[in-house]
């Protein structure tokens, strides 16, 4: 850092405007948080009404045209199955959450730490980045059969797959954040005698935080996808496994109940990170 400050022609605080700094569309935090939602109760009511109309319409349609349950069950039956059979689903929901959360935690921590370290060494970063990209773009479900073959049907292969799916996602976004070095702000901290560690905790990390949150959100969604995929491919438990189980038995109400649970998990991830973003990254918007 010191050499960075000393060896180049300083810009003395002249910086590109924030809207020109974002490199990829993914790095634009506002794109994720500014999705338009209900602004008041009136709009929220309308959104609710739309759901009622769609579900009610489906219900009527299925009943009127006598659609067989194996093609599409009545929404009311899905609701009933979700309510009555929840104790059947619960251990599988827990298994999925366990795999997803532990894999995600491992991947996210490694991703953030790696991003923070690697961006300090541009040469290392250049060497490693293509491999991280490879991990990002390769569907990690693909390695599950291999891992299962080596490690058996336990949770370990799925946790590894989730970590490998979420970690690089978190890392690549966090790295974009840590790469945003605002020399003027670093100089400000240095003028008060800040140590390298203080510059990291008080300047570089807060500056990177919006991108880290984006990475964590995308990583969580990738983690959920991979957890469910891994359960479909090689597991005796979990919501993914239940999807295969219920569809093979043509228990479509149960099948759809599982899908509803997955949808809720996905939406929850979004909502959680929306609020985290509002709290910790809104200064950027």
């Amino acid at each position, binding site marked *: 850092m010191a050499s960075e400050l000393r060896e*180049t022609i*300083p810009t003395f605080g002249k910086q590109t405007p924030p809207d020109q700094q974002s490199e990829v569309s993914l790095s634009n935090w506002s794109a994720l948080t500014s999705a338009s939602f209900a602004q008041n109760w009136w709009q929220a009511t309308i959104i609710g009404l739309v759901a009622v109309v769609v579900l009610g319409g489906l219900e009527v349609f299925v009943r009127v045209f006598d659609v067989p349950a194996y093609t599409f069950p009545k929404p009311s039956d899905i609701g009933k199955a979700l309510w009555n059979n929840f104790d059947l689903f619960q251990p599988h929901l827990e298994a999925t959450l366990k795999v997803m959360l532990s894999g995600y935690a491992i991947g996210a921590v490694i991703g953030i730490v790696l991003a923070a370290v690697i961006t300090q060494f541009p040469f290392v970063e250049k060497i490693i980045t293509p491999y991280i990209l490879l991990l990002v773009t390769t569907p990690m479900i693909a390695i599950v059969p291999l891992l299962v073959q080596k490690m058996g049907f336990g949770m370990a292969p799925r946790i590894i797959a989730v970590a490998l799916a979420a970690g690089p996602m978190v890392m690549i976004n966090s790295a974009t954040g840590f790469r945003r070095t605002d020399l*003027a*702000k670093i*100089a400000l*901290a240095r003028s008060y005698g800040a140590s390298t560690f203080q510059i990291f905790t*008080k300047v570089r990390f807060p500056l990177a935080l919006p991108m880290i949150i984006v990475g964590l959100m995308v990583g969580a969604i990738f983690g959920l996808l991979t957890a469910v995929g891994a359960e479909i491919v090689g597991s005796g438990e979990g919501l993914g496994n239940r999807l295969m189980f219920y569809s093979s038995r043509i228990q479509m109400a149960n099948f759809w109940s599982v899908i509803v649970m997955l949808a809720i998990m996905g939406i929850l991830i979004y909502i959680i990170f929306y609020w985290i973003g509002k709290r910790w990254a809104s*200064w950027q918007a």
Partner: protein
Amino acid sequence: MVQQTTATSAHAAIPSRPHGQLSGIDSVPSQRPVAMVVDHATKYYKTKSGAVHALEDLSLEIAEGEFVCILGPSGCGKSTLLWAMSGLHDLSNGRVVLNGTPVTGPRPEIGMIFQDANLLPWRNLEQNIRFPFEIKKLDVKPYQERIRGLIDEVGLSGFEKKFPRELSGGMQQRASIVRCLSFDPSVILMDEPFGALDAFTRDEMNLLIQKIWTETGKTIIFVTHNVTEAIFLADRVVVLTPRPGRLAHIFPIDLPRPRTIDQTFSSEFIKVVLQIKQTIMHGGFTDPDTNDARVGIEM
């Protein structure tokens, strides 16, 4: 608050200078102790296309409590000079001495005010003003009263919880002035602080800075490319040549204080403006009255 604690020391540190006294090129009004010495400062920057020569053999003495403006065209190395004074950048050659000790890194008795306020956007005003204390691991409590007084003085009361993006450029720069004064540095280095502000806000800020300087008696070194601003504020205007920056001439400004914006339209003031503009154009200054060439550069 500021008035009470520091006004007395301000008057002790800045004895009134006799009017019409023309100091020599590098002399300092003799009755004041020297705060900072720039000793044969030379600076090269390494770039991909070779070295850039930013400063060449520049020497300067600044008295305690003096207001010095460093003026020059863009890219003349005036910011480089200031950053070398702050200890944030090394010199290739020469040295800066502050209060008798060479500057080798950031010093606690220096406060810096940057272009565009340089507030941290994720902190509100109060948290921004606390930033130096967090870095220095100083307890902010004993300074609380002083900070409140400063916030009041610059007219930011009631904005403590606002974030930088919610404030105008002028207000942001006021906040950064409070941040700088909060820990009571004896030397303030200002790097084109008002360059991004509109002309009216700039006038306002200049009046504010003059007031703060009068009340606190800080040594202020102020980099600008605005001739009027430099003359309005300074005891001495140090004019640099285009890159590499050398000393072109030092203009002592003996206009009475407190100065007003109206004064900037007086014939006395305009005369100095013209002299400085000619100096910048020709890289040196010839006194029209005596035809005495006071040229500070050797070509």
